[in-house]
């Protein structure tokens, strides 16, 4: 597999799995606005995943659906940050904000890629992600504005920080640290990143659920 396909699949798997996790708030978010917000963000992320899978599928001679749904858990390239099941509000906001901050750094690099398809798709994704970032930053600021919120966010960010570093390649991690510390106005731990390629047990559970309808249909069914 080429480096390009590997990159496309890493991006697509991040967006698909996080999109799925975001959609877990549909119907049960703390209030209606957030139900709508997380559902809409999920729809955007899964839309990005589809476009990225289509580019990868053209190289691999397969389809976006087969890449999204028919691989084994070990074949996924997503960062463990997006795999974690964290149906708790401060952790959800911490993951959302850490991911979107890392994603902005990554898309900023990809926008200048010499590969016109990758540069184009990164620029287009970035326009939509701007709304996700504003939403995430609004929530971080809201949590930081009370003692209770600040302490819950701190616990969640400290737990997820090694995972957040693992979203990015080595050379981009210092920029993530700089941006995160600037907003939180505190230092974050010097820790090893949880790298891609290692999977949390939650990924297999997620894929089991996500593909259950597809697996129940006769092979070759058209959707």
């Amino acid at each position: 597999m080429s480096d390009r396909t590997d990159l496309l699949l890493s991006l697509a798997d991040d967006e698909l799995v996080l999109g799925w996790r975001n959609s877990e708030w549909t119907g049960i978010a703390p209030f209606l606005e957030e139900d709508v917000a997380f559902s809409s963000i999920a729809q955007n992320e899964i839309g990005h995943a589809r476009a990225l899978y289509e580019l990868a599928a053209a190289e691999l001679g397969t389809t976006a659906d087969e890449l999204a749904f028919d691989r084994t858990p070990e074949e996924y390239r997503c960062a463990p940050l997006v795999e974690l099941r964290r149906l708790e509000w401060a952790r959800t906001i911490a993951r959302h904000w850490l991911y979107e901050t890392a994603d902005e750094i990554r898309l900023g690099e990809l926008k200048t890629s010499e590969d016109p398809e990758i540069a184009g798709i990164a620029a287009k994704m970035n326009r939509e992600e701007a709304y996700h970032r504003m939403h995430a930053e609004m929530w971080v600021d809201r949590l930081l504005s009370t003692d209770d919120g600040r302490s819950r966010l701190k616990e969640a960010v400290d737990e997820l920080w090694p995972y957040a570093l693992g979203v990015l390649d080595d050379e981009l991690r210092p920029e993530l640290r700089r941006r995160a510390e600037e907003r939180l106005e505190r230092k974050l731990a010097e820790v090893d990143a949880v790298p891609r390629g290692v999977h949390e047990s939650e990924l297999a559970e997620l894929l089991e659920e996500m593909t259950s309808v597809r697996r129940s249909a006769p092979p070759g069914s058209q959707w």
Partner: protein
Amino acid sequence: MVTAHEVWEALAEIPDPEIPVISLVDLGVIKNVTIADGRVRIDFTPTFMGCPALETMQREMLAKVEGLGAEADVRVILDDSWSTDRISPEGRKKLRLAGFAPPPPRTAGKLELVQLQGNGFRCPYCSSTDTKLDNLFGPTPCRSIRYCNACRQPFEQFKTI
């Protein structure tokens, strides 16, 4: 043989699947129409990548060209060339009349939440700018929800992208 002008006219009859008051041409998603070797090529720039209407739009375009007695290929262009700035003045007027506040123009710098929380957004019902952001996200990817303090009516605001 069909001409590009005829194709544009036919495409202008296709309503947006989710906001049928405006056409695909008003929405600015058709970047180019070319005719070569007897086939029509439509360069299509999707709006939001997760929009479920994108496939319907493509099917409708193919059917319209078929109705002109020609065959078409739709080339999907995924880059930054579609923006809400591509919505035509006529399209913006139709949006407002249907109760959707049209998107403000793109700004040169980074889009900031504080701008969206400001009151530079006009209510499509009563034209007051005394409106506030209620939710960055709405019923479809392309819309936010605002509330008009003057006529006490929530309304859908097209996002700028």
